[in-house]
């Protein structure tokens, strides 16, 4: 595993996140999921606009594991998918902080867009 630099404890140091990375973290925010479940969840939340390929999904998962933003859980069967044993993933504490930091960053950007009139202000 690639050793984390000391300053990596600071969630801000991970920003800005890649789009796929953020979606995976968001997907794991409410519960543990296996790979395919993450893929499905991201597809649904983006209304079919972001479809992660198997390769890019697991490349991202590997990176997130190395960065200690997610952790692997034991394999367990998933009745929703032929009861095959699959590896489940969960957000780590750091991963949750990083996801929040990215969300706040995006919120700030959104705020700036509203302030300049690019987007309608919230009523």
């Amino acid at each position, binding site marked *: 595993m690639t050793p984390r630099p000391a300053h990596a404890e600071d969630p801000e140091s991970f920003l800005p996140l890649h789009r796929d990375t953020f979606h995976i973290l968001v997907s794991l925010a409410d519960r543990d999921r296996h*790979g395919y479940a993450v893929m499905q969840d991201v597809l649904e939340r983006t209304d079919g606009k972001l479809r992660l*390929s*198997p*390769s*890019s999904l697991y490349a991202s998962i*590997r990176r997130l594991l190395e960065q200690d933003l997610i952790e692997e859980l034991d394999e367990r069967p998933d009745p929703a*998918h032929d009861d095959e044993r*699959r590896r489940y993933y969960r957000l780590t504490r750091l991963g949750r902080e990083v996801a929040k930091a990215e969300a706040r960053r995006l919120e700030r950007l959104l705020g700036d867009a509203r302030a300049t009139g690019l987007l309608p202000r919230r009523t």
Partner: protein
Amino acid sequence: MRTPRPHERFSRRAFQALLALYPAAFRDEYGRELSLVFTDRYRDATTRWDRAQLWVEAVVGILREAPQEHARMIVHDLRDGCRALRRHALVTATIVVTLALGIGANTAVFSLLNAVAVRSPLPVEHAEQLYVVNRGRHVAEGAESARLSGPGFDLLRNSAPDGVQLAAMSRGVARVYTRIGQERETVPASLQLVSSNLFPVLGVPAALGRLLPEANGTDANQPLAVISYAYWQRRFGGSPDAVGRQITINGASFTIIGIGARGFAGVWLETPVDIWVPLTAQPIVQYTQSFTADGANLGRPWLPQSGIWWLHVVARVPPGQATAVTGAFNASLSRLEGRDAGVALQPFAQGFSRFRQQFSTPLMVLMVMATLVLLAACANVANLLLTRGVGRQRELAVRMALGAGRARVFHQLLIESALIVIMAGAAAVAFARWAGDALLRVAIDGPAPFAAPIDFRVLVFAAAVALLSVVAFGVWPAWRATRVDPVEAFRGSTRTIMGGATRPARTLVVLQVALSLVLVTGTGLFVRSFLELLHLDLGFEPRRVLTVRVDPKLAGVPARDLPETYRRVLDEIARVPGVESTALAMCGLGTCAIEDGYHVEGYQPRKDEVVAFSVNAVTPAYFTTVGTPLLAGRTFNDADREKAPYVAVVNRTLATRYFGEWSQAIGRRFGLTGLDVEIVGIVEDVRGLGNLKAAVMPSVFVPLAQRPVIPREVEIRTSIDPATTMTAVRRAVEAAAPSLPIESLEPAVVLVQRGLSQERLMVLLTSAFAALALGLAAFGLFGILSYAIARRTSEFGLRIALGATPSHVQWSVVRDALQLVLYGVVIGLPLVAIGGRLASGLVFGVSPYDPPTLLAAVLVLTVVGAAAGAGPARRASRVDPMIALREE
């Protein structure tokens, strides 16, 4: 669980096959998950279009991600490799330095050998079609010895078959004095006389202007010159208006008509030519060197005379015609001379080189030695890796226990090896560059006249040998060890772990000792040879002699003023404090013109024998000035002048060879046309400074007053160190003749040292190689013994517990070391015999199989072996029995 449909099963298997593009480690980790995800997506795809889209996504995704995973893994392994090497920094540094020295030494020596003996320095077209026309006994001496006369060249030109082109050039490159425009001081330059078609025959174009025009060979009114590109840059700053300018050469005016091609500076490897003039200009530039003559008038133009052999003749022969051309030339020359001329065409693709003649064999010997050093270095590295690998078994066991596959471990070990060899290669390049320059400087004793760029082929080859050693002894054993169950690796005692490395390691050390024996013996021979030469009786006293080379005639002093000029110069020098006597000579110490065709009273030469003498013309004070002892008779006096009977003083070799007992030579006669010269004295042999190892030539000294030649050497005897009088002598010469250029001014000892440059090179380098090999062998011995101690700790503990004394234990360790040395010596002896044969031509005054030298080498190895064992022996004798047994 729903049963998968056939096309789903096929797709899954096809996708799994695609996963082979990923690194094995990634596949092991995520392959199953990827397959599952793909299968799920495939099942959820309802239409053919969705499935097709999925496939495109999957393939594109894999093609994009797989190379990135590979790159990431290599970077990761590189980082891990660097960390691993840093953890064992001392061992890594030792391996890198050892390999760098071995690879670098080979590269440096081979690059020089390549530049001198293998590569063609001639930047000409189809150099392989060029030949030198040689004949008679000079064929055996090599192409540089070839010589022909002007009429001989004409004859060959007229009898050359169609398609064969012939050109000629003066055998020597002369040092001349030039002036351009209104310059007051003359500037030295190098000059060669050539036939007009030399450049077209060689295939060298002009960079600017034109080359020498076709001219009637006897027409002397063609004061035209072509200068070299380098000379043009140096003297004219590359200005195009150099063409058409006048240049004064040795007082005669020439017009520059062209500039030679860039990169071409003549055909001598170490003597670049600045100016080329026609052969017909020989009397104009007063070229009088590098010739043999018989019945000729040296004062008249040389080109038409058949009795002066002063030309190299070069032929461009179309492929396949060499034999026919040789036959045609031989027929023509044999007809002219009335006997078989023995013509041979000798390859000229590499031009001429004195350096090549002198250093080819020594360089090849050095090449062999450098290879031995490389082998010794690889053996050392192999040992280091083997013994280090032993310690790594546990580390690798940990890695595999944490999930690393064997393939991954192998990959990591390979990367480490590659890193080591890359570092060693980089260091080797730097070392080779430095070593190559240093080698050249020592060999030539001055700035290098030609370049010896690094030959990367040999660097790559040597690095490949090194890599092979590293892989064979570092990677292979370590990887094999990963077959062992990790638990066993943890549990195994030190003894069992290390046992596997002992035998190959001991074999390697024995090999190193054998190689060291060859190198140390070789060094001993070269050192003894060098010492023999240093203490050689040179036949004169170099420590009291200063030599000055001048050339008043070439500097423009009129002939009638010469005697007065010389008298003034000698008088002024005689006034310098410390000067005891002065003398003039035609040639320098030990290097003189060879004249053949002599007849000796009472001596009948054999059928193929040529009676040739080295002839020098000297003033009466010559022998006392240079310190050559008179053995019998007398030296010259003032009575031996121009109109007096001809007399000569000969050396011991001549007197012995032609008169039996050398004292019988006094009063005997010899001569060229008749027996008109009387021998009045016999002096000791003087060694030729150009080649001290060569046999002394029969030498004749004649009075300068009885020879119409210009003396070029002033010999000065001093009562103090000659070097301290150099400045005063220079000032004296300048005071006596202000416009007289001093070609050289140096103590005779410097000339002697220069003559020993080849021997000095061999001594320096073989000593360096031997020291390196010895160091490596000692290191190897030390290492193997240290690990043997570690392996036998419990054994030593038991022996000490049972009453063995420390000295007894120490002796057992040292005995082990000496045993390895003995095996190495036994294996090395046949190699020494082979090496002796190779080096036999390079040693002087000592047999290549000299027993005392061999004995000394064995002694050195024994001492080194014992010293290498001393440390481990002391450690073994201090083993605490209780701790040792508890560890076991």
